[in-house]
């Protein structure tokens, strides 16, 4: 039955009363978890600067340092202050010391982002002091923009510490050997100024979400070239470069005793070529600037040509070159094509023999994966390839897991019986590059600890056997000189060979130079098939047919052909073609 109007009116009034109650301000929900923040620094043994920066943050920014963590990458880990830098962790919570001597340069700051798990990373030069409230402003920005792809910077105070004379950005012009000249944006003077977009800035302070970090080109060495380059990388990933007016910072007072690391024009020019080349920018202004600035003092054209040769060398297509040799690595012992960028990674000295090698490989691949490298060339010796012969750039764009390259000075010279299908000798003289696509698999198989290495060695005697078996079983797609154009490579025996058959294979005698080789049955069959008409692929197919193999043993045949060529039993490839 319908209610009387009066009641209806009362009911409506009641509803409004209720509504008022329902619409009373709700208690706020707890704020989203605060973004964790890491302040990171890459230093070259500058304990004094690191100490001042960290302690100033802790003393003068208490509102923003509750859960602040620190990462310090020490690029002079054998230096006078390494111990003191490490021991900062004794009195600063959430402090991580990362010694890194693999190579030297300002791009080492890339490691700051790899060595922290914080949501937001603020990378500082050591000895930078932040204006009061700057760290809180930084946190507030990223709390308010939790998915920001932006790179956040702030006004740089000169030694006079006056915000009214601070610089906000770098203009994209050349000066004094640097791309970028200090400038000030008038927007900083506006009342209530909000963060505004800038083209580029000095890198004494910059911050971004760790997930938005674009990474720096792994070929950068020595000082410079990141300004402008990093900013463009951020923009190409959809981010902005911002100058936040409340994140002012003061750079260290001028260093009375100079910088302790080399600051060479050669490095700087090469870095610009690397960075700008990656971006596809016109590199002509680089040479023009250095010619104008240094032309009267040095052969700039020659210097540019030399570093351009390094940058554009075919081997430079590989993201990184790690030397895993025991003891100190003499970069000069590596071929010049790679010497300028070899990173030495010291194997665990507590281990010996193959376990040490496995650990070195594991450590190297973990580092390569953490740094998002696309591929890494691993050298067990102070040697390495001099060329990327027989591999076209497009080959590297196709899917591959392993790339085998002839090393300039093979660690183990092929010796009889050399051409076995497993074990060290089959890959002797070859350096191995591993593609990022294979990092996880190889790392899982190598084992991260003693138990893992033990399990590995129970299955395979060494890394080479493991890799070869993986190639044979189709787990790894291999490219490289042994497999170069296997469909057109038609190997042929050298003239004047004397072949003597015996039960285990063949004895091969050469006249000049006088040598005798003992080949096992497999190598003997391969040699017999190398008639200058069959291709390497064809030989592999014939082998598969003869021995009822599921897949042609292309990797093994290629390796065998390569070894027979090195021994002089087969004609060199150019001769046979």
């Amino acid at each position, binding site marked *: 039955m319908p209610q009387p109007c009066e009641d209806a009116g009362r009911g409506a009034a009641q509803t409004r009363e209720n509504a008022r109650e329902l619409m009373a301000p709700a208690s706020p929900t707890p704020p989203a978890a605060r973004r964790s923040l890491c302040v990171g620094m890459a230093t070259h*043994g500058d*304990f*004094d600067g690191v*100490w*001042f920066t960290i*302690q*100033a943050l*802790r*003393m*003068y920014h208490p509102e923003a340092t509750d859960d602040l963590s620190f990462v310090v990458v020490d690029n002079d880990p054998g*230096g*006078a*202050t390494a*111990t*003191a*830098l490490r021991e*900062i962790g*004794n*009195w*600063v919570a959430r402090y991580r010391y990362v010694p890194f001597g693999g190579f030297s340069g300002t791009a080492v700051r890339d490691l700051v982002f790899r060595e922290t798990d914080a949501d937001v990373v603020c990378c500082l030069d050591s*000895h930078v*002091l932040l*204006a*009061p409230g700057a760290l809180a402003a930084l946190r507030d920005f990223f709390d308010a923009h939790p998915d920001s792809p932006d790179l956040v910077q702030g006004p740089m105070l*000169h*030694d*006079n*510490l006056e915000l009214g004379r601070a610089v906000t950005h770098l203009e994209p012009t050349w000066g004094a050997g640097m791309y970028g000249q200090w400038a000030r944006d008038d927007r900083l003077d506006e009342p209530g100024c909000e963060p505004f977009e800038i083209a580029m800035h000095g890198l004494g302070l910059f911050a971004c979400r760790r997930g938005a970090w674009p990474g720096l080109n792994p070929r950068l060495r020595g000082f410079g070239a990141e300004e402008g380059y990093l900013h463009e990388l951020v923009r190409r990933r959809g981010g902005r470069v911002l100058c936040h007016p409340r994140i002012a910072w*003061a750079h*260290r*007072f*001028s*260093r*009375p*005793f*100079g910088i*302790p690391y080399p600051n060479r024009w050669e490095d700087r020019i090469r870095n610009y070529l690397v960075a700008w080349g990656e971006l596809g920018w016109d590199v002509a202004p680089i040479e023009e600037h250095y010619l104008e600035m240094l032309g009267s003092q040095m052969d700039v054209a020659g210097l540019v040509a030399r570093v351009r040769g390094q940058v554009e060398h075919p081997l430079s297509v590989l993201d990184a070159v790690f030397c895993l040799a025991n003891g100190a690595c003499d970069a000069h012992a590596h071929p010049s094509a790679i010497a300028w960028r070899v990173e030495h990674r010291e194997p665990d000295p507590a281990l010996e023999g193959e376990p040490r090698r496995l650990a070195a490989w594991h450590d190297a691949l973990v580092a390569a994966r953490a740094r998002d490298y696309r591929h890494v060339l691993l050298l067990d010796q102070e040697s390495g390839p001099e060329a990327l012969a027989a591999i076209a750039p497009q080959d590297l764009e196709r899917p591959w897991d392993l790339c085998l390259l002839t090393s300039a000075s093979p660690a183990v010279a092929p010796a009889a019986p050399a051409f076995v299908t497993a074990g060290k000798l089959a890959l002797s003289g070859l350096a191995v590059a591993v593609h990022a696509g294979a990092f996880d698999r190889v790392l899982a198989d190598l084992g991260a600890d003693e138990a893992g290495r033990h399990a590995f060695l129970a299955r395979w005697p060494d890394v080479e056997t493991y890799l070869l078996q993986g190639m044979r079983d189709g787990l790894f797609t291999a490219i490289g000189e042994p497999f170069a154009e296997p469909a057109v490579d038609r190997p042929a025996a050298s003239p004047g060979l004397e072949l003597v058959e015996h039960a285990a294979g063949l004895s091969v005698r050469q006249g000049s130079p006088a040598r005798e080789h003992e080949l096992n049955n497999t190598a003997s069959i391969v040699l017999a098939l190398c008639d200058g008409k069959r291709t390497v692929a064809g030989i592999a197919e014939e082998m598969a047919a003869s021995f009822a193999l599921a897949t042609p043993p292309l990797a093994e045949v290629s390796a065998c052909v390569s070894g027979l060529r090195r021994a002089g039993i087969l004609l060199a490839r150019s001769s046979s073609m």
Partner: protein
Amino acid sequence: VTREALPRGTATADPRRSPTLCVAIVTSGDLDGVGATVQAIRLYHEEIAGRVSFLVVDRRPEGVAAGTAEALAGANPMLRYLPSPGADEGAARDLLMRATDADIVCWLDDRALVAAGGLAAILDWFRAHPGSRDLMQGPQLDDGLVHGAPAQPAPFQLEIEQPGLLACRRDAALEPGAGRRVLCHPAAAWIKRPDANPFACFEAIFCLNLDRETERWREASRRHARLGITSRVERFPGVATPDNPHRGIAVAYRRMVAAAQRRGYEHLLVLEDDAVFLDDTLAVLASAAVELPGHAWDLCYLGACVWSQAFPFLGTSTVLQACGPVTCTHAIAVHARAYDRLLAEIPTAADELERWLEEHLAIDQYLSRRIRDGTYRAVITSPRVASQPNLLHFDDGDGALAARYVI
């Protein structure tokens, strides 16, 4: 009551006027630390901006790169840089007092950070106590930013004066100290940057180098840089005596010891410009630095020609040995305990020096003889972290470790 009827009195300081503060820093060439200390005060103590000035007395301006001092002062018009080579602590303070007209002077370590509000708290206290002759200090924080002072807001009295941060009225600083209190203001906490380099265990380092030997100095500087001691090493000009180099060396050693005594150094490390160093010098010296204060030494050899002698380790030490008679002087630290005797026994007069040379031949022979007769208590590092090129070729020298002297 008319205006004229008011009694006339002498003017007194306006208690509402904030006193001015001079932060006075005495350094021995560490302008890097001074720069950070000053900049931190300017950046984080904004409430005293306009009331603070800085005075920097540099007792070792010789080692400072050209332009650094000017840049320091140029960036801050309220800062004065006063080079005062070789000034001892008293002379430096005297210089500071004469150079400022601030109401309050606060001596501060040359590599310190003062807690936010700390300097303002000191000024406030002196404003509230305009006639005070007291000394005001602050508790020193450890690296964890913790101090052991009582948790109370008001200043409390200390038994003795501490180094680091010390403030007082300028006019009171010039008065005799008797009767004044030493107070500690909890708000004025401060922290001092530790010295990370183990060579800091020696208060000063001189490197002996003849003026004409510029290439040797360049090489020595390169080695100092690798050891991280560039800023600590003061080049000390050698004395060229071509007819008898031993005379020049003896004269120079005496001058260095005299300078160390005059400047009040507790110990002095003397390096010769051809000293080379072991690959793990810093690690060995770091251990030695911990142990040295526990021994009563007069001479500490970082290297020497030991003539195949083997020395016993000191107690449980693994890096310090009791040193017997040795020769060479390429790396010896001298403790203040030995200054008087050295200065007394190495003559200055030419004829006396000639007789001394006839008796001892050279400074290293003299030291060796005095170690043998027990006059000087000598210690030596093991391994010997410093050597000389000529010692690397001899088995009874440093031949055994020759390949490791790579610095």
